[in-house]
């Protein structure tokens, strides 16, 4: 995992570019927690709106005015309950949600004061207060065991939300995950500074503490017969597979040493305890325009890369990284280029040394090369042009797909009886953590209704 430094007059990839203190400082909390005094002041700004727009904007429909009011009232436990009842991963969502385009975008304080109530930070305040209090009594208790068994494939946000909700309802859940640790993108895919201090695993421990959930790691869905077997052994199956595949650039030089998928770079970084041992190039090029590209670019810079170019083939409005994310990249020293498409990765003795780009323009709505070209020297190149569902197995199993992802109804029911799906692998979504949680939660209720038709589904 930690290859030796590669240094030559042409290539410079090495670990330990910074002092130990500097690593700690740079990878500390991107958005530090509110102090109790700040939280109360901020909570006081909430107007407790009628039919609050923030609650409607939340994919999990957290009752935002209630949880904020409870913070102001000094009732943090009640606040956390209001949040986690609607969103069992409310702690992670408080850290990673693009609140600027969800709850905080529609806060009426924008209109009045030009800035919303900091809903995300308040949510973190309440959840952390309960989750990190070893003396806190459990917020939720598990219903009487139902003797029903559900398989959840993928222990990411969707799977975890589904498993926790089902376990609360008394069902026995077995979670299968391909990785050595559960958590999915929370553990392997987000920038380290978004969820420092091992929060993904702390949240996981809290979720599993409900009881009734068994986790089987290093289990990969690779054949259609595995799925058939799960359907035979379990009363229901939920697939929260995420998008395990990446798109290739399909250009020359993609196999050179030093070229890798951004998701792999991020996963490695997240699993590296001592960041000073992680080699980084002096010059890094990131290709892509999404959140993964931003996370890779910013973290490369934080690791001590001197120059980080992030290149996207279209304009800023087409980027899937939000304006805030782009801003974040810019303020962290990433050089952001629009209208550049990679043409070729150039090597030196088998190692990447540069990337050649073609300048692009929209002509009659079509992206076309202008003929101008540009080359950035690079010791490392991260590819982040999107991920895809590894769907061959699903197709073999006869599952209906839509645009390469799993087709489902509103509650996540797939075309296969007894199989539900949610999160990024489900077609028609926004690829957001909070949406994955909602998928998992809704499917859990649908599964519960199916397993216990006489019992009203209500949590």
């Amino acid at each position, binding site marked *: 995992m930690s290859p030796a430094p590669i240094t030559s007059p042409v290539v410079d990839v090495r670990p330990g570019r910074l002092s130990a203190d500097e690593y700690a400082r740079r990878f500390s909390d991107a958005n530090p927690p509110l102090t109790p005094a700040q939280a109360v002041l901020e909570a006081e700004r909430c107007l407790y709106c009628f039919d609050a727009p923030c609650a409607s904007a939340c994919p999990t429909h957290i009752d935002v005015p209630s949880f904020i009011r409870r913070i*102001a009232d000094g009732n943090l436990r009640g606040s956390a309950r209001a949040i986690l009842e609607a969103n069992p991963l409310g702690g992670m969502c408080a850290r990673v949600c693009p609140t600027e385009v969800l709850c905080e975008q529609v806060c*009426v304080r924008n209109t009045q004061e030009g800035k919303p109530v900091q809903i995300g930070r308040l949510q973190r305040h309440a959840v952390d207060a309960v989750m990190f209090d070893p003396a806190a009594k459990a917020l939720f208790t598990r219903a009487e065991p139902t003797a029903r068994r559900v398989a959840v494939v993928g222990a990411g946000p969707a799977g975890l939300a589904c498993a926790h909700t089902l376990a609360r309802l008394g069902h026995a859940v077995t979670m299968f995950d391909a990785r050595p640790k559960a958590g999915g993108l929370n553990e392997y895919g987000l920038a380290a500074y978004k969820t420092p201090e091992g929060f993904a695993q702390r949240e996981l421990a809290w979720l599993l503490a409900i009881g009734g959930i068994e986790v089987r790691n290093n289990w990969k869905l690779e054949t259609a017969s595995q799925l058939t077997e799960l359907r035979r052994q379990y009363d229901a199956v939920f697939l929260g597979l995420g998008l395990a595949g990446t798109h290739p650039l399909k250009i020359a030089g993609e196999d050179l040493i030093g070229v890798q998928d951004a998701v792999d770079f991020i996963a490695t970084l997240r699993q590296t305890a001592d960041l000073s041992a992680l080699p980084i190039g002096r010059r890094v090029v990131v290709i892509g325009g999404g959140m993964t590209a931003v996370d890779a670019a910013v973290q490369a810079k934080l690791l001590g890369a001197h120059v980080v170019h992030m290149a996207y083939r279209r304009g800023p409005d087409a980027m899937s990284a939000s304006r805030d994310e782009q801003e974040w990249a810019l303020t962290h020293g990433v050089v952001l280029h629009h209208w550049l498409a990679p043409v070729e990765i150039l090597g030196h003795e088998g190692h990447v040394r540069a990337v050649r780009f073609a300048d692009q323009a929209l002509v009659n709505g079509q992206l076309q090369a202008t003929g101008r070209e540009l080359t950035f020297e690079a010791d490392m190149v991260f590819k982040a042009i999107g991920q895809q569902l590894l769907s061959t197995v699903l197709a073999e199993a006869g599952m209906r797909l839509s645009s390469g992802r799993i087709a489902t109804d509103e509650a996540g029911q797939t075309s296969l009886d007894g199989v539900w799906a949610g999160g990024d692998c489900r077609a028609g979504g926004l690829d957001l953590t909070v949406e994955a949680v909602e998928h998992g939660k809704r499917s859990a209720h649908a599964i519960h209704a199916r397993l216990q038709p006489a019992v009203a589904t209500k949590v």
Partner: protein
Amino acid sequence: MANLHTTFAGIHSPNPFWLASAPPTDKAYNVIRAFEAGWGGVVWKTLGEAGPPVVNVNGPRYGALLTPDRRLLGFNNIELITDRDLELNLREITQVKRDWPDRAMVVSLMVPCEEAAWKAILPRVEDTGADGIELNFGCPHGMSERGMGAAVGQVPEYIEMVTAWCKQYSRLPVIVKLTPNITDIRKPAQAARRGGADAVSLINTINSIMGVDPYSLTMTPATGGKGSHGGYCGPAVKPIALNMVAEIARDPETRGLPISGIGGIGNWRDALDFIALGSGTVQVCTAAMVYGFKIVQEMNDGLSNYMDQMGFKSVGEIVGRALPSVTDWRYLDLNHISKAVINQGSCIQCGRCHIACEDTSHQAIIATRDGKRHFEVMEDECVGCNLCAVVCPVPQCITLRDLQPGETDLRTGKVVSGAHADWTTHPNNPSRASA
């Protein structure tokens, strides 16, 4: 800069802002600092009779009603009258008045309800050169258990009697400080006037318990596990005080009696409320205890700017100016019709007006129009109650519009006549006056 000089019951002060008899006026050190900061006068903390002074508790004397972000709404205390030696107080009063001749120096007094006690102390106070005395008939805690303070203020006959003794044994103006812990504030004020009082001051503090500690389940504040009701003051009591001031100012028996207004004054606008409802001076305590003496500079500056803006040449010109607008309910014009109007340009769409009206009033504000979030008053349901304007977080976003003669009230279908009609002549009033 307007001239804020005030003459009140013959007492001169460079501005109408006095410090009330309370902890801030306990001794020369504080009072000198207050005068340096710009206070127009002080009422020295209440003196008792000669002999061993009272003792205070050594636990918490103060409690507060705070917003969640710890802004102070209300304040309470269980401190007694001065716990310093009478002679020391008299010496300090003499010296401070000599050093600050232009400031009002009023001395608050509380001695047993016996003629001899008053006869003994009054000349001693007069000898200090003080400008007046204030009779503490208001203190609701501790001293009232010993038959003084509010125990006197709650019995109009005692007020009249003691006031008369003070007029008999002293040449100083006598201000009678009234307790609000009484059913009808006009009765003690009338008694004070009958006794010959030169002025009244009000309100003293209100009996109060601040709360209970949720985990020990003892009242707070508590000393050694027990507490006692204290006197409540601060911003929360201002409306109570204003009503009492106005009641005295417009009562035929007390009209014209100078009033020193007290209760929750924290800025010039609060002071203006009291002055416009009949107060010649105002007294402040809580604001000084929260912010320090410097706060008087903001009060003076604000009042002065207001007077310049309005063209008032003296504080006296403002005294009682709002009183003609205060009347009994029965004289309110029942033909007058107001309707709430929501300014869509400044509405932030929080919906508080809607839910307040929908849940607790007249169901007169819609929440959606054409499927979109939209808040608007339905005039055919609106009774002009003002609740929506009160709960709206945006200033001036919701206002009340007065219907003009000739307009139709969509709620009743009646045309506004413009003629006055009140309860005294209303057909539903069984004891109406014949037309």
